[in-house]
């Protein structure tokens, strides 16, 4: 597959091809060197971005910058090494793409730190703690967990055995912020737990555990879920008693919305479940029923809850609310407008005018400074990640692996759509983190585990049949073909 690197354009994203599947029979190049090259490229972009922040504020690159860059580079190399050793046939694009996004996030967080420090200096306030070092620490933790997943989990099918355990843990994590003492409400949404000095957003980990659960559960039940009893308007409807799981998923999503006031997570879970149900059963009726339930839930939420109604009103006419509830989105739009086609340049815009610029609104901050050109490129990197994940889903042979890879990719894609759509006023704003970019440990860790799982599955999918499972042998058996 010499065109592997090039097949990243839009057509490739829209229609996943199954060339990967066909070619597994032949001797498969690992393309690890291409991965390394792309990682270096991603790292270089990060260094340039950091330098540009320095230039914009008139600070020469100091030792701190090179140390930080060195640490990031080392972390990327560690991940690359682990992949080389433990998942040698894994897709070579997943790791560099996710690394690039993480690095861009770090650059932006650093840039926002600089703005915050400058403001504090001018107002004679004490300097705030920079976020970039804690984000870097979280990245280190994420890399450790990423490596652990790849080292400890030799075969993704092992996870299938723990379907229900993981599902239960996922569900508990999801509702954990409601628990007394450790549950914390931040900005109206109850999605944090605080233990000791650390706060954590368990929904991010729950996202992965529940995807595993959905995959295991649906593989088991898909035959009965695919049964058709009656046909209405040419659409085969499932049996009434098989509606149970979907209704449960719907109720849990509504519960998250009502009790945790977390619109984004609620939307994400329900969307994910419906999509996986459809993939498992190949019945479009599930999409129709799911869509209907979603609409019902949305209408219900709109009329029952003031905070949902407010979100919609602000979405429809943010200008009326420009100084209060709509302030954030209006500032976000102003920022994007200021960025224009080529952007203000990193360090030269005013992204700090948007509240929560480093978490929910980091895409607005990037859009202001790298322009629509950079933003589209960024979205395409996400698209490549999702497309590569779906490609692995098609290529892997076991149903559980297929569903899991598809589910993980869809979560990623949906999450990006929901948050970026919200920040850019395509859809009402919901609080979700932007995978890899946003400041925050839970999100970063969860998404890196997600990438580890996708790498594991894609390694499985692309591994030649003749290859023994021991990854230690793999290193010595790599044969390069041109």
């Amino acid at each position: 597959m010499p065109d592997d690197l090039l097949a990243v354009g839009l057509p490739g994203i829209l229609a996943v091809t199954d060339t990967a599947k066909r070619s597994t029979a032949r001797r498969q190049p690992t393309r690890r060197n291409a991965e390394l090259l792309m990682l270096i490229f991603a790292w270089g972009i990060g260094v340039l971005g950091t330098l540009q922040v320095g230039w914009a504020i008139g600070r020469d690159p100091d030792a701190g910058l090179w140390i930080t860059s060195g640490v990031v580079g080392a972390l990327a190399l560690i991940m690359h090494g682990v992949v080389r050793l433990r998942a040698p046939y894994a897709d070579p694009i997943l790791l560099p793409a996710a690394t690039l996004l993480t690095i861009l996030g770090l650059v932006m967080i650093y840039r926002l730190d600089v703005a915050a420090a400058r403001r504090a200096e001018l107002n004679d306030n004490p300097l705030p703690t920079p976020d970039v070092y804690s984000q870097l620490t979280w990245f280190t933790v994420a890399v450790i967990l990423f490596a652990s997943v790849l080292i400890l989990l030799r075969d993704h099918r092992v996870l299938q055995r723990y379907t229900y355990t993981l599902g239960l843990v996922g569900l508990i994590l999801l509702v954990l912020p409601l628990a007394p003492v450790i549950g914390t409400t931040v900005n109206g949404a109850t999605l944090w737990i605080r233990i000791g000095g650390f706060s954590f957003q368990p929904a991010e980990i729950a996202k992965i555990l529940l995807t595993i659960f959905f995959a295991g559960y649906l593989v088991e039940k898909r035959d009965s879920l695919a049964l058709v009893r009656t046909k209405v308007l040419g659409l085969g409807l499932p049996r009434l008693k098989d509606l149970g799981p979907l209704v449960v998923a719907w109720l849990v999503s509504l519960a998250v919305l009502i009790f945790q006031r977390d619109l984004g997570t609620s939307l994400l879970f329900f969307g994910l479940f419906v999509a996986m149900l459809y993939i498992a059963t190949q019945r479009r009726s599930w999409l129709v029923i799911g869509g209907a339930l979603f609409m019902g839930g949305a209408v219900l939420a709109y009329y029952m809850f003031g905070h949902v109604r407010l979100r919609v009103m602000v979405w429809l006419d943010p200008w009326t609310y420009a100084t209060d509830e709509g302030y954030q989105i209006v500032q976000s739009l102003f920022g994007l407008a200021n960025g224009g086609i080529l952007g203000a340049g990193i360090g030269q815009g005013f992204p700090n005018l948007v509240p929560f610029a480093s978490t929910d609104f980091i895409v607005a901050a990037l859009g202001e400074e790298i322009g629509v050109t950079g933003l589209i490129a960024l979205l395409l990197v996400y698209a490549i990640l999702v497309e590569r994940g779906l490609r692995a889903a098609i290529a892997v042979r076991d149903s559980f692996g297929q569903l899991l890879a598809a589910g993980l990719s869809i979560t990623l894609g949906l999450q990006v759509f929901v948050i970026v759509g919200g920040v850019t006023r395509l859809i009402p704003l919901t609080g979700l983190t932007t995978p890899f970019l946003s400041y925050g440990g839970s999100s970063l860790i969860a998404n890196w585990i997600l990438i580890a799982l996708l790498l594991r599955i894609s390694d499985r999918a692309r591994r030649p049949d003749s290859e023994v499972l021991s990854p230690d042998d793999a290193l010595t058996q790599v044969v390069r073909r041109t």
Partner: protein
Amino acid sequence: MSRPIRRISIVLGLLLIALIANVTVIQVVLAGDYRDRPGNQRVLLEEYDRERGPILVGSNPVARSVETGDTLTYLREYDNGPMYAPVTGFYSLIYGATGLERTENRVLTGSSPLFVVDRAEQLFAGRDPQGGAVTTTLNARAQRAAFNGLKGKKGGVVAIEPATGRILASVQSPSFDPNILSSHDPNSIRQYYATLESDPAKPLLNRPIVSLNPPGSTFKIVTAAAALASGRFTPDTVLPGPRAYNLPNSTNKIRNWNGQACGPNNLVTLRQAIAISCNTAFAWLGNELGAEALRAQAQLMGFDNSFQIPLRAATSRFPEDPDAPQTAMSAIGQFDVRATALQMAMVAAAVGNNGTLMEPYLVQEVRGPDLSILQTTQPKVFAESMTPLDAVQMTEMMVNVVDNGTGSNARIEGVRVAGKTGTAQTGNDNPAVAWFIAFAPAQSPEVAVAVMVEDAGAPEVSGNQLAAPIARSVLEAVLR
């Protein structure tokens, strides 16, 4: 299961396209609208983040940006703020910009197309964009003389270089301090602005170019120019100049200021009528010439035209369709004739420049951040207001006003000064407006000036008493 996965991937692809289309609309199509929305601090912050170019008088900045330690990096400072306020305007966080600060904003911020090369250089060098400088046509000495002259009075002064149209002075009184309005403290800005707004003397009004008043007897220069242009009159033509002129179709009369006839046997030459500002002779003359001829002459001298210097001046007016008594009143600068000080300075300048009226302008040069000249304003002819011969005759008559007539206070030792007084009633109860227009040296003038003092509240001679001394000091300041 690969078919549903492919379908899902297509759906995700469509979502991606929706996102891309949406950000493109925001950042490309709607970006301009968003930038102009009220409450968008970015545009302002960006402006305050750049070093805004100075406004120069000669080579001295009267408005310049100085670095501060505050969130808004640069503070606008004005030297002699109140003196130059009608030209510079202010640059406020809250009330926006006025004056040259507003009209030349793109130059001062460096976003004018003139700076394409500089911007490209700055972009590649990674330097902050810098604004360009605006050099005004003002003459610091003339400006100061006019400012000092108007102190304690209400009014405006405009001085013009007749040969080019360069505005040498533009002064208002009362004025305001742009330093306070351009500060970074919202409270003091609001407070000061409210004080200025509530002041009945209207210090924010750009009096020299915006305040419209009946020009009174200074308009007789326009009427006399129309008379010369008709070919039926010379300076020596004898006109009827009785104590009172009976307005046609009316019981009302126009009287002379001293209640006397203008000459023996109620007769007076045009020259003498101007010298003593004979109302009855000019009222008669107005009806002899007709409203059309008066309007045509007025328009040749700039009436009914809106000038942008580049500040927008109010349009001076000759009445639309006056009847005979109204025409007689208009001929002596009453009824609905309205003029700015700028307009009357242009009348004087037109006479002084052999009848050729130049377009007035305030911006001499635009300079880049490196002070290289990027643009120089070229003088432009507005109209041939008078034939050169008529202009010479008119000049002689105006010199006579100063030497032997009502304009005695404008005399300058060793310099021939041409001038004309005026006093206008702005209504029955309103106090009078005192005027003086002049140019010097009469044979080839370097400067023409119009002084307008509102609320003069004095008898007929106030033009000479109140306005002429100010005009003289401005003339002297330029000629010195």
